[in-house]
């Protein structure tokens, strides 16, 4: 089951590379749809009460190296894999029908999808690194071939940064396996070695720091973020969705899976520092976004801010905050994908992304009314308005982090106010205002072009109103994660405090 999720896109990519050009889009769409369907099937087989890995698969591979093919899924990887399958579908559906070199494009997108699925599902550290590196070159090509003017610069910057990130992670994993004396790179083996105190705390902190830097580049966190604005802006909208929506989640996923879960004790040592870095990212991203003139760049910087919330939540490590972190990863993926998609639509129809030129798109006759309305929904979801999916994740992050790190949590609340500031700037300039008579009559957005944004908007609404559908999958896993962490001092108070008076339910 899990292997299918990895190899279906991979083999599909090979198939598409050889199929006729005019069929390539449909073939890619069929594979992505099948993949999405299989992921939904996975939900039906997932056991909510179980805390550990489920549906595990195992094949011996290179035992002498310690490399085994071991897969598994838990409450942390399941929602992210679902996001991956969904966004791959959106990317393929939402890409331009007359795109250059379609076979290469669709094949590369599918390879990225398969690689990310592999990274989320693999239970062997070396296998994770393999999958982590697999998507590197395809994304480089996706930016470098289909990007805009400065695509070469952006693609190369992305490549260098991510290669360093991969090298650091590999180094960390090698050191970890060597020093802990584990027999293989299997996650479980290493985890048990660490928990049985075979590794001094100082060494743990050192290894954790190496891994953290590696994942921080991918996430990205300030000050290792400068590849992001260039890469997101220069990439075509579907590739930007791929990058921001899921590839960046590898970083936060790695932080939780290979940081918090693997090194619970060392994690609590570095947690206060991480909270500070997280808040710095949140504020930095939000403030920089305010002064941007290019709407795509603005959205890109907003992404830095929103990933900072995940770090703050992971650092706090309470049950609520971790659940909020997982929720935030998924909701950020959905919202960012929607925003990038809409920005792409606006760019194609209006021909500019410049805030000083855009105006009055909400105009019902000559503008892009539905696109603008959806942009308002996306922006407000990102700003954390209740009833949309962004709110509940952010709220859980704030509420969960507050007992451990009160000041960072409150600063995060403040930053969500700044988020509102730049989205209001974005909407006031783009959607509101008077439509210029000279440039009016933009090409209509066809129904087909609206579909991706409508699907995402529906999900954003639905999960905002029914957040348990977002959070129920991860709850037992994140609770188990918290249990392994040494309890921090403040947290004791909180656990005593949150004892709710049980509510009598009237008949």
């Amino acid at each position, binding site marked *: 089951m899990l292997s299918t999720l990895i190899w279906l896109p991979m083999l599909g990519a090979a198939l598409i590379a050889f199929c006729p050009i005019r069929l390539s889009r449909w073939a890619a769409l069929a594979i992505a749809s099948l993949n999405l369907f299989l992921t939904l099937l996975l939900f039906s087989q997932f056991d909510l009460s179980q805390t550990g890995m489920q549906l595990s698969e195992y094949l011996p591979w290179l035992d002498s190296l310690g490399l085994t093919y071991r897969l598994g899924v838990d409450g942390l990887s399941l929602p992210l894999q679902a996001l991956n399958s969904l966004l791959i579908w959106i990317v393929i559906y939402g890409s331009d029908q007359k795109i250059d070199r379609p076979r290469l494009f669709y094949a590369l997108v599918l390879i990225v999808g398969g690689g990310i699925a592999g990274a989320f599902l693999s239970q062997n550290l070396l296998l994770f690194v393999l999958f982590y590196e697999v998507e590197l070159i395809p994304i480089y090509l996706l930016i470098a071939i289909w990007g805009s003017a400065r695509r070469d610069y952006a693609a190369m910057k992305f490549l260098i940064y991510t290669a360093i990130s991969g090298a650091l992670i590999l180094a960390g994993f090698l050191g970890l396996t060597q020093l802990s004396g584990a027999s293989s790179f299997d996650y479980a083996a290493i985890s048990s070695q660490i928990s049985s105190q075979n590794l001094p705390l100082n060494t743990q902190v050192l290894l954790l720091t190496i891994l953290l830097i590696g994942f921080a580049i991918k996430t990205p966190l300030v000050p290792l973020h400068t590849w992001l604005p260039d890469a997101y802006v220069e990439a075509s909208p579907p590739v930007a969705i791929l990058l921001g929506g899921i590839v960046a989640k590898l970083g936060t996923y790695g932080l939780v899976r290979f940081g918090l879960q693997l090194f619970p004790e060392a994690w609590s040592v570095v947690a206060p520092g991480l909270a500070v870095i997280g808040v710095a990212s949140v504020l*930095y991203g939000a403030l920089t*976004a305010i002064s941007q003139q290019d709407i795509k760049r603005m959205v890109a910087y907003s992404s830095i801010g929103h990933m900072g919330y995940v770090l703050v939540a992971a650092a706090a490590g309470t049950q609520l905050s971790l659940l909020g972190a997982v929720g935030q990863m998924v909701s950020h993926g959905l919202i960012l994908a929607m925003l990038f998609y809409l920005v792409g639509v606006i760019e194609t129809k209006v021909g500019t992304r410049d805030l000083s030129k855009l105006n*009055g798109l909400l105009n*019902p006759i000559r503008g892009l009314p539905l696109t603008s309305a959806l942009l308002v929904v996306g922006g407000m979801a990102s700003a954390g308005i209740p009833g949309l999916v962004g709110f509940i994740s952010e709220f859980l992050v704030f509420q969960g982090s507050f007992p451990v790190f009160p000041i960072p949590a409150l600063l995060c609340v403040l930053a*969500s106010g700044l988020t509102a500031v730049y989205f209001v700037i974005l909407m*006031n300039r783009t959607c509101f*205002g008077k439509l210029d008579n000279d440039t009016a009559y933009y090409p209509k957005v066809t129904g087909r072009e609206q579909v991706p944004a409508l699907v995402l908007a529906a999900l954003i609404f639905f999960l905002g109103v029914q957040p348990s559908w977002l959070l129920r999958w991860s709850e037992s896993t*994140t609770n188990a994660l918290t249990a392994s962490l040494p309890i921090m001092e403040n947290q004791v108070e909180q656990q005593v405090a949150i004892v709710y*008076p049980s*509510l009598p339910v009237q008949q």
Partner: protein
Amino acid sequence: MNQILLQSVWLVPCYPLAGTVLSALWFPSITRLTGPRPAGYVNLLMTFLAFLHGLFALSATWGQPAQELFFPWLNVANLDLTLPLQISTLTVGATVVITGLNLLGQIYAIGYLEMDWGWARFFSLMALFEAGLCALVLCDSLFFCYMILEILTLGTYLLVGVWFNQSLVVTGARDAFLTKRIGDLFLLMGVIALLPLAGTWNFGDLAVWAQTANVDPVVITLVGLALIAGPMGKCAQFPLHLWLDEAMEGPLPSTILRNSVVVASGAWMLFKLAPVLALSPVVMSALVGIGAVTSVGGALIAIAQIDIKRTLSYSVSAYMGLVFIAVGTGNTEAGLLLVLSHALAMALLVMSVGSVIWNSISQDVTQLGGLWSRRPISGLAFLVGIAGMVSLPPLGSFWALLKLADGLWTSQSWLVGLVLLVNGLTAFSLTRVFSLVFGGKAKPMAQRSPEIHWLMAVPMTLLLGFTLHLPLILQSLNLLPAWADLNKEMALLLVWSSLAGCVVGAIVYLGNSVPKPVQFPLKGLQDLLTHDFYTAKLYRLSIVFGVNIVSRIIDWVDRYIVDGIVNLFGFVTLLAGQGLKYSTFGQAQSYALTIVFGMFLVGWLMTRSP
């Protein structure tokens, strides 16, 4: 039957919510086929259903003890978010007031927006507000109230921005959103910080907790101050009052509801939170302080405005300031009564003003005049509105203000003087508007200004009737004091202050003894009031400027320092490569020389070490 009505009272907010969705279905493409009107009619029907349901539920809940309904929403990681609804005479009565005013407001809007095409957006947002407010009064949990308030903040942004192609509308919508959101975020901070202290967000449990709570005074003061920030934004209190005035750029029918019931949402939160706020004397003093500054300041600014809508918006701030004082001094009931009487009277005043704006060329009070003979219904509505607003027996506000002043007399008597002052100033300000618009001779701008059509006149007259009958309703609710308990001196003082305000206003603005436009002896003070204490300018010079500068600096740092260092690395690497490439120039001799040199170096190193 009664039980069914009560148990299903949660449907009351659901009808308008359905209206929101149904109205929003009129996309531009559908509007082109059917015209915009069905979107409004659908909504009107839904509001009517909500009103009827509320009305029947009110009679069912009469004299019954309060009931609670629970709806589980989210239960994760020891955090139980269950939506509790409280069904009592008070809450159901509040929904009736909200839906009733909405019903009248929407009929009015159908008349007012006769020529408009944005019905779908407008009515769907009106219904969103109605749903949100109904849910707010029924909801018994601080957390869910916060959620509703935040959604309404977004609603304000969109509703003010309905006519989005005018630049003043755009800035008004922006300011409304941001100032309210600042308040909301502080409220959120308070909400988050309160949970570890109290362990609950349910208002009922919070009140129980507050009786025995033993918390650090500093902490509870900070939490309390954060909690009142939300209501400050909603009730347009200083310094977050700016938005209400700018929101006047939105369509007028939404102003009817904004000035009457939407601002009251903040006051409602205060009533619910009163036991928690009372834990900290600093918070209570802050409430009184904010309320005092806003009520006097608002009443004064209102007098200096010439835009007919703005004259009313500042009076709203002033009255909400009185409500803040009421909560800050523990006179919650008087505050509630004031909110009710203010809502009816203010809605009536806005309707009357709206009818003038609708078919007059100008909305500048100095350009109008002499409309009494042309628009008797609007004029009468305005007069009754004044009477309902200021303390004039036997109408609503008299009893509310009397109760408030009575309560203040025993604790903080200086505040009684403040109440009298605000009442007098409001009387003066409203009389001024009436005299300038309806009195005197018609100026050129007011020459062609006939009475409005029935769609606007009917809701206005109905509301006029309600305002006049409010004392009877209060009587039947046993909310009026018995004659024997009446504090007659206080009542006289209040009546005198109202009369003084009205008479002076009439003398100045109806008579010819004072030259128009009226110049206040202190020019600086007049300018200060006209420009709303220069609040907009202050904001621009402080917060807006600060955020702007900081964001630019960080952007600069990002571009030239953080990214610059990275690019420098790249540049140095490239430069090094470029430089080193000259070392491979392809001459066999030089390669041989390098090899020989290398061998010598290696040999030297090897022989040296032992």
